[in-house]
């Protein structure tokens, strides 16, 4: 009852004209920031943080949160349309979203992504209202060994992902992991694999690399196809409201999957230092693992959009929970919001709920409002966005290429990243030609550094023994499941061999 009363207070704050205005501005800014590759939600929030000193704190946080939700929604647009991840957590959207766009189903793909985003945010918002404190405390039980086990689970769901067979997947994954090694060693602090250069010391960031691999790579492949086949007109992206209906219907049809992905995403999101990106990969991987026909994935399966997007948005929202309830940021964006709290003279932590109910509940109420408003804005915009695909290729492509390079530069303001995009664009092309799967490389690159840190932290805690992963109950469960999934392809291989032998035997 008290919760309900608090929530009403929150809605009172969120429905103030100033709050509504700032929220709408924030959402639109967030969408813009999400669309621009490289300029992520974190940067967007950080850039606009100082502006919020001009409004009351409870309006300020609603504004900043709206930018964040906008970016969560907007990041998918370029992933689906051009295979360029607008946000780290929308890399997984490329795997099936881009093929759909190529098949002329861009509108449907976008609508499905927006609707599943909405489900993700709403699921997270409900947890926010009901179980904020106990969940935040539960998340603290996850130390390095538990986190490593979860990372293993994420990797295991990607076994056999994409084309090219086990060996090529292994090579692709290893190359991704190798790239994450350059920079400072997480435990000794010494530079490694830098070849004495300052450029390598900053390490390979996955945004410029994925922009190159997927974005530039796809453009080159596309250009080549056009040159050889002389496609006069690509399949036009159909315009109209059917797509929106289709998106809603698809989400309804796969509602179980979407809801489960959202739940899973939310729990990953509240864990320390993960954020939305691993959640989106996990969502994709799990959806594929449990699909009755996994071979559809990577060729434009709508589930391949619903699952990662619902997971990513639930996780993105979840990452704010430990910040609000305990004062520890679950993601870089949450950390920037934390700086805002300091700036407004608020002291984040367990006491914030009691001392600043208007602030906290205003934010929570705005989750519901922002999520809904953003869905409406996006769905209305879908036909317009899809119509971008009707712009002649020769006009659109140069713009995309420029956006790719700008995007890779603004991420860290490093010229090195621009060169990375160029080199990896070439590599992406070659790998595609040689049928090496790109997805495992992206997953390894995104999760590699995190995984290494959790592994090495665990080993320090466990005195160098791998036993630590199996003696702690939570990590043991995840590890066993992960190991099972790793072994699954091997089982399948043996089973297939047996089967073919059985078939041969009678003949």
């Amino acid at each position, binding site marked *: 009852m008290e919760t309900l009363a608090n929530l009403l207070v929150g809605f009172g704050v969120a429905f103030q004209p100033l709050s509504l205005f700032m929220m709408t501005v924030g959402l639109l800014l967030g969408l813009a920031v999400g669309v621009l590759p490289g300029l992520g939600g*974190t*940067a967007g929030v*950080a*850039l606009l*943080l*100082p*502006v*919020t*000193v*001009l409004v009351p704190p409870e309006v300020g946080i609603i504004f900043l949160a709206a930018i964040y939700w906008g970016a969560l929604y907007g990041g998918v647009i370029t992933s689906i349309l051009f295979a360029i991840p607008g946000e780290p957590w929308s890399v997984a959207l490329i795997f099936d979203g881009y093929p759909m766009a190529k098949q002329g189903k861009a509108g449907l793909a976008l609508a499905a992504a927006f609707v599943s985003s909405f489900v993700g945010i709403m699921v997270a918002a409900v947890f926010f209202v009901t179980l904020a404190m106990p969940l935040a405390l539960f998340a*603290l*039980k*996850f*130390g*390095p060994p538990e986190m490593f086990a979860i990372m293993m689970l994420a990797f295991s769901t990607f076994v056999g992902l994409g084309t090219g067979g086990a060996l090529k997947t292994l090579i692709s994954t290893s190359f991704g992991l190798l790239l994450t090694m350059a*920079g*400072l*060693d*997480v*435990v*000794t*602090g*010494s*530079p490694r694999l830098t070849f004495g250069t*300052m450029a390598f*010391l*900053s*390490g390979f960031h996955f945004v410029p690399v994925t922009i190159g691999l997927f974005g530039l790579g796809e453009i080159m492949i596309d250009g080549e196809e056009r040159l050889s086949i002389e496609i006069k007109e690509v399949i036009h992206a159909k315009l109209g409201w059917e797509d929106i209906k289709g998106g809603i219907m698809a989400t309804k049809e796969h509602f179980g999957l979407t809801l489960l992905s959202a739940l899973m995403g939310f729990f990953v999101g509240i864990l*320390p*230092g993960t954020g939305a990106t691993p959640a989106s990969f996990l969502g994709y991987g799990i959806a594929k693992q449990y699909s009755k026909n996994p071979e559809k994935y990577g060729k434009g399966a709508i589930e391949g959009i619903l699952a990662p997007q619902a997971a990513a948005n639930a996780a993105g929202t979840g990452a704010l929970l*430990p910040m609000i309830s*305990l*004062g*520890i*940021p679950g*993601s*870089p*964006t*949450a*950390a*920037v919001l*934390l*700086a*805002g709290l*300091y*700036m407004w*003279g608020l*002291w*984040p*932590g*367990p*006491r914030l709920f009691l001392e600043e109910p208007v602030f906290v509940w205003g934010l929570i109420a705005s989750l519901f409002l922002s999520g809904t408003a953003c869905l409406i804005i996006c769905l209305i915009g879908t036909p317009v966005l899809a119509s971008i695909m009707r712009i002649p290729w020769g006009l659109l492509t140069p713009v995309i290429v420029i956006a790719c390079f700008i995007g890779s530069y603004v991420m*860290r*303001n*490093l010229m090195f990243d621009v060169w990375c995009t160029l080199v990896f664009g070439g590599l992406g092309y070659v790998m595609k030609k040689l049928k090496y799967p790109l997805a495992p490389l992206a997953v390894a690159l995104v999760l590699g550094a995190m995984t290494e*840190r959790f592994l090495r*932290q665990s080993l*320090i*805690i466990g*005195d160098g023994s791998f036993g630590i992963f199996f003696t702690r109950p939570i990590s043991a469960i995840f590890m066993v499941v992960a190991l099972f999934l790793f072994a699954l392809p091997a089982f399948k291989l043996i089973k297939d061999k047996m089967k073919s032998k059985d078939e041969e035997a009678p003949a």
Partner: protein
Amino acid sequence: MSGIRSRYSFVLITIMVCAVLFVFGEVAEAADWPTRPVEFVISAGAGGGADKYARFLVGLNVKNKYIDEVIIPVNKPGGAGAVAMQYLLTQKGNGHMMLITLNSFVTTPLFQKLPFTFRDFTPVFLLALDNFPLWVQKDSKFKTFEDFLSEARKRSILVGGTGSKQEDEIVFRAIEKIGKTKPFKYVPFKGGGAVAKALVGGHIEASVNQVSEAGPFYPEFVRPLVVFQDERLDVKGYEDTPTAKELGFDFSYNMMRGIFAPPGISKSEQAGLVALFKDISKDPDWLAFAAKTGLQPTSITGDDLMKFVENYEKKHITIMKAQGWLK
């Protein structure tokens, strides 16, 4: 006699004219700064420790317009500050740029054997010294720092901190050395927030988080045993936390929250930057933040700042050599 007098007055007048010119010239020139937006380089990613401070300071300028131009935060993460420092070096003579520094400003060039040191940069301002209390869980069996030390002499206690061979590890290694304890099992985390989380979650036994990081969990989840600085923390609720020196443990260590500029900037640009931070150092929001997080506000500038940092370097060289991190 009159000859000497007139000579005296001539000298006097010259000095006065020079002084007047100097003062007004300085003011006139300082008013020329800034002529364009000022870039604020941050050696951490968005959301990192230094990033939070920098953005807080930027917000103060938005609120109170200490300078008319905007301050643009630019993140140059990587290499424990090496990337950001290198970037500043390439911007020689750019007076519209500044860097927010931590102790890594001193330790990173030493440890990574970089071709530059802090001496290559232009000193601007030391805003504050941040604290290093030793934190344990609320229900930890360590009731006092002595408890902690005597246990640490019997076994390797599991501790955590930000990064590797940076401030937090330096503190623990120094405790090891001075307290003659067994080596700590030190787990490096990505940032202060992650360390505080690990402590509250019981994954490590102790940390040296700043009050701004662990404070929100005190007293519900964690408590400070001791603080490694000369004065007690001037924060409500921390009055009874002893300093290490009071307990006869001779170790004092702080985090420098300072501002430096690229090499070769003009005197007037330097003066403009100093004036900006002098204003910020008197900002009521800044002082309130400092009071809540136990920061000791300082206002050291120019040569004094260089001397201060030099002392810090000496201190670090001693600790790092003892650890074998430096030869």
